[in-house]
């Protein structure tokens, strides 16, 4: 039986976690919150931003603050699936007998940073994505379950698209959120220079949450009370991204080829629950749904040729959906 006191304790720990991360990461409040939401939901995130914005630092700091095992995979065109999931290698024991032994890849971690995932070949990408979906890997007929919590944070570089292998839409849909990292403001940049201008790696990060506590919070968030009107609101938002929907705004009808999938609606509700938890509420609110609307849907809208040709941003389309669909 969960008590309010316990809920408040866990919420307080997450506030400490946020504070700990913010002690390292300058700015990016929304990004930190969305990353934590993904963590609370046990889902995988896609971070998109130019190099040098602190994506790796963010994930590493998060791992340290949570006391979780962290792995970083730099995706390159010659990266093989075995480089990610591991491979069977021939080893010789003390008696001289040789046998195959599975050498676990970097995916066997709690937090996996898949850096520039679009630079690897689709075969390698799909190996990672399969692991993300199944939360287990199968090598030579033997299945290895990944340890919970398991979370992949993949990054993409929106520039330098030459020689890259953009993720297929179906693969992208498996990411819970797509988080866009903006360039820091002038003040934030100055603060970055102040804190990290000495050339040190980063200041020590204190662990504020154990793995068990994280799993407890994940379970708690999964059953966070959410009223039916909120579910209806989330469904209407997602449904309005379909060009065939009667509620679809003009931009959707004009520039969208495929709208968001039902997985997007799930992401909305789960993300809203986690957002409510982080906000210190005891129930999900409309505001929570609205807070996770963009990261939940932005990578799930597929523009048509006209939309791409005219360069209509997905954010603009979603903005119209957000404004047109009101909670009822």
């Amino acid at each position, binding site marked *: 039986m*969960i*008590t309010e006191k316990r809920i408040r304790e866990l919420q307080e720990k997450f506030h400490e976690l946020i504070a700990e991360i913010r002690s390292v990461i300058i700015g990016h409040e929304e990004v930190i919150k969305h990353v934590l939401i993904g963590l609370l939901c046990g889902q995988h995130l896609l971070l998109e931003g130019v190099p040098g914005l602190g994506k790796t630092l963010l994930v590493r700091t998060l791992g340290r603050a949570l006391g979780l095992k962290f792995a970083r995979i730099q995706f390159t065109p010659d990266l093989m699936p075995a480089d990610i999931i591991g491979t069977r290698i021939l080893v010789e024991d003390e008696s001289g007998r040789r046998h195959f032994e599975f050498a676990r890849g970097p995916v066997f971690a709690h937090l996996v940073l898949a850096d520039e995932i679009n630079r690897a070949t689709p075969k390698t990408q799909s190996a990672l994505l399969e692991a993300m979906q199944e939360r287990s890997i199968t090598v030579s007929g033997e299945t290895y379950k990944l340890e919970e919590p398991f979370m992949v944070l993949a990054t993409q570089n929106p520039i330098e698209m030459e020689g890259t292998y953009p993720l297929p839409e179906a693969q992208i849909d498996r990411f819970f959120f797509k988080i866009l990292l903006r360039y820091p403001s002038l003040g934030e940049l100055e603060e970055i220079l102040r804190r990290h201008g000495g050339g040190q790696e980063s200041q020590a990060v204190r662990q504020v949450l154990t793995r068990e506590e994280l799993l407890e919070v994940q379970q708690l968030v999964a059953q966070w*009370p959410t*009223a039916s*009107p909120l579910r209806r609101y989330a469904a209407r938002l997602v449904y309005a991204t379909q060009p065939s929907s009667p509620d679809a705004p003009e931009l959707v009808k004009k520039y969208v080829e495929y709208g968001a999938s039902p997985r997007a609606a799930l992401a909305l509700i789960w993300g809203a629950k986690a957002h409510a938890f982080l906000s210190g509420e*005891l*129930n999900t609110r*409309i505001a929570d749904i609205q807070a996770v609307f963009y990261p939940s849907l932005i990578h799930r809208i597929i523009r048509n040729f006209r939309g791409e040709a005219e360069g209509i941003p997905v954010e603009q389309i979603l903005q119209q959906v957000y404004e047109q669909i009101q909670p*009822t």
Partner: protein
Amino acid sequence: MHSFETIRVSLERRKRLVQGSALASWALLGSFGITALMLLGSTLGIWGALPLSAWVIGNLLVGALAFMVGWLRPINTIELLFRADRQWRTNERLVTLYELSLGYGPQEFLPLLERQLNRLSVNAAQALPCTSRDKWRWVVVVILALVCVSLTSFVQLGALFVRTEPDRSGATAQASRESQRASQLLEWLQTPSAELAQKLLSVRERLEQARAALALNPNDPRARAALQQLHAELIQEQQRLAPPLPSAEEEQPKRSRPESSLVEGSPGEPRPPQRGTSEALALNQLLQSLRSVSEQAQSLSPEELQKLLEQLRETNPDAAALAEHLLQMTQTPEEFRERLEEILRKLEARQALREQLENLQRELESALMPSEPQVEREESPTGFPSAMTPREESSPQAQQEGQQGLASEAHGIQSQERQEEGQTSAGAGRGTAPLDPEAAQDLPDLSQLRERSRELSVPGSQQDDLEILFEIVTMELPQGSETPWSTTPVQIDYGKVEALLDMLEIPEELRDAVRQYFLSLSRQR
């Protein structure tokens, strides 16, 4: 401090109130709109006036009914609480709590959320305010109600205006006048004819007594005074027999109509005797007009009958008024004709009585005048016996003749049939032959006739009055005597019979037979 249940109940009550109010405003908007249109129609004269109480009560009932329907309409509590959450900015706690209370979701959170809600201070009216549309709709309802009140006041003022200016009232006022006139005539016709006939009989008896006295002594002052008195009484009876004058209100619009009224002169004034002829003419015209209507009514459709009445209104307004009144009072054409026939019978009785009265007047005037030659009396234009001449008064034969003449008025026509040999038609003779003195002595005098009639009658019985009448005309003549008397008594007796026929409970078929008999006598005259 509010518990969740208290909040929910107050919100539901507020929601029902808003629902009822909105529905009532819509209903009243429609009903007041219809009322305003109906009142506008009343103002323009398209249809009748709509009473204030009727439309006020009607609209109130509509509003109350609509409010009740709105109040009882089912409520979506989830939607209601979600809306309250949005209005109160309670972060969807109410709706979440409600669903948790229904058993949906993790029940561990139920007490936690309830504790949060206990710190909430709420106002249901703030959560579910009256929308501006509702307010404007109520404003329109109030405006429409005021318009309806104004229109009602306008219609009532218009009615007052119409009442004060009868010249503008048009057909309605004329119809009202006609109805009043018809009622007046019908009331006049209700005066019992039998009473008038009895009075005339009494006058005749006294006249004969006075004439007998004058025959003995032409300068008898008591007899002359009695004759003067009888003259005054006859004038009074003449006024009673005359149709009533239209009232002053009715009289004014008739001034422009030629021959429109039965009589001339202002109401209440005594009718001068010289106007009797015009009154008789008017009464005759009324009778003829109604008879014409009665005859044509059988073959005319209701529309054609209305046209006929319109034409009649120009020539004889009283006849038109009576016919129109009867038409409105009856349900079927047959009933209308029956009532009209009844009126006709009464009018004929009046006419007959009037003729008798005029005869009496002439006789009385003759009695009061100095003696004239016998020839003048015989050649009276009416054919009725006039007063005795001085020569007759002075001679015993004349005295006997006068006595017999008095008796003959009560005896009727059969005596005349015996007198005129070979003449079988009743009432055709004049009764001028000299009377045999012996036979005259055998005749009963008037007092004897009266005594005989009293013996035959049962006091208070109309049937007995009729029997007396027949006894008089059939039994009291001396056998084998000559009959020098005039036929005038038949006229008097016929009027009495007709009046009695109207009142006695005689079967219809017998009534017609009796009436036809007396009508045949009247025509032969």
